């Protein structure tokens, strides 16, 4: 299915957020996720289903002021 990953249209076969992160090659660790603008805690990713057109945000630590 086609969804939006960090603002980029992306084709995936995974059906949950946790699977999608693995399939897309994300390393585990310091990552935070949001689905359609809502924060999804790491512990809930495996139970978070994905649907066509969903918007996923994957964020990591970055320099800031």
């Amino acid at each position, binding site marked *: 299915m086609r969804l939006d990953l960090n*603002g980029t249209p992306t084709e995936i076969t995974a059906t949950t957020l946790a699977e999608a992160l693995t399939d897309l090659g994300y390393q585990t660790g310091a990552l935070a996720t949001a689905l359609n*603008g*809502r924060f999804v805690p790491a512990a809930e990713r495996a139970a978070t289903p994905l649907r066509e057109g969903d918007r996923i945000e*994957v*964020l*990591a630590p970055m320099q*800031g*002021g």
Partner: protein
Amino acid sequence: MRLYDIQLPSRLMLGTAQYPSPSVLTEAIAASGAAVVTVSLRREAAGAPGANGFWALIRQTGARILPNTAGCHSVTEAVTTARMAREVFGTDWIKLEVIGHADTLQPDPFALVEAARILTAEGFAVLPYTTEDLIVGERLLEAGCRVLMPWGAPIGTGRGLRHAEALATMRQHFKDVPLIVDAGLGAPSQAAQAMEMGFDGVLLNTAVARAGDPVAMARAFGLAVAAGRLAHEAGLMPPRDMAAPSTPVLGLADLGLGGLP
């Protein structure tokens, strides 16, 4: 300085962005003596090696982590970012920024108060980036904030305390609330000025990161903050409009050469 029941060994808080290299960043943090460093969250590309190198580097500094919600323009964005930051960085502390204008980066006080209310209810220790407006400050305290961070000048401008009188009023009004001047500081003298005025601390980034020698400038800011605080505690003399001789005039020689009596 004590913020949210945490005793901090330094009154300087330092941003981690825009340094010429990771090693300069860590050396600057050490040279500044900063007890708190700010960090952020950004999109991570799929399959990228990750920003964990940066995160590991920052953790090694031993400084307390203060994630920010930089770049957020709405309550929802800021609240979601704060929740994500809490999980990644493992801290309840959040520097809450809700930006109203893209050009001035002025805080949106209405959204700021609303976001602060939501986050404090969720157990966050909110450090709000605000203006010197007293009413907004009161609303933020009512919302559960126990620290206020008024701007010195717009982020990245290096203009110093653009509204020094308003900041002095704010200091006087919120006598028992920790106040940190956040943003707009360009020179150590400006940080010292804020500390002399009785502000509890300062937060800055660009002035150090973009200095010719960031490590030396970090040290200069650390010294200025310490000096300004010491001066505040020592009690500054009240200013006068007219001159007053500092050398005693009693027993001054009269040499009969036409000097003033």
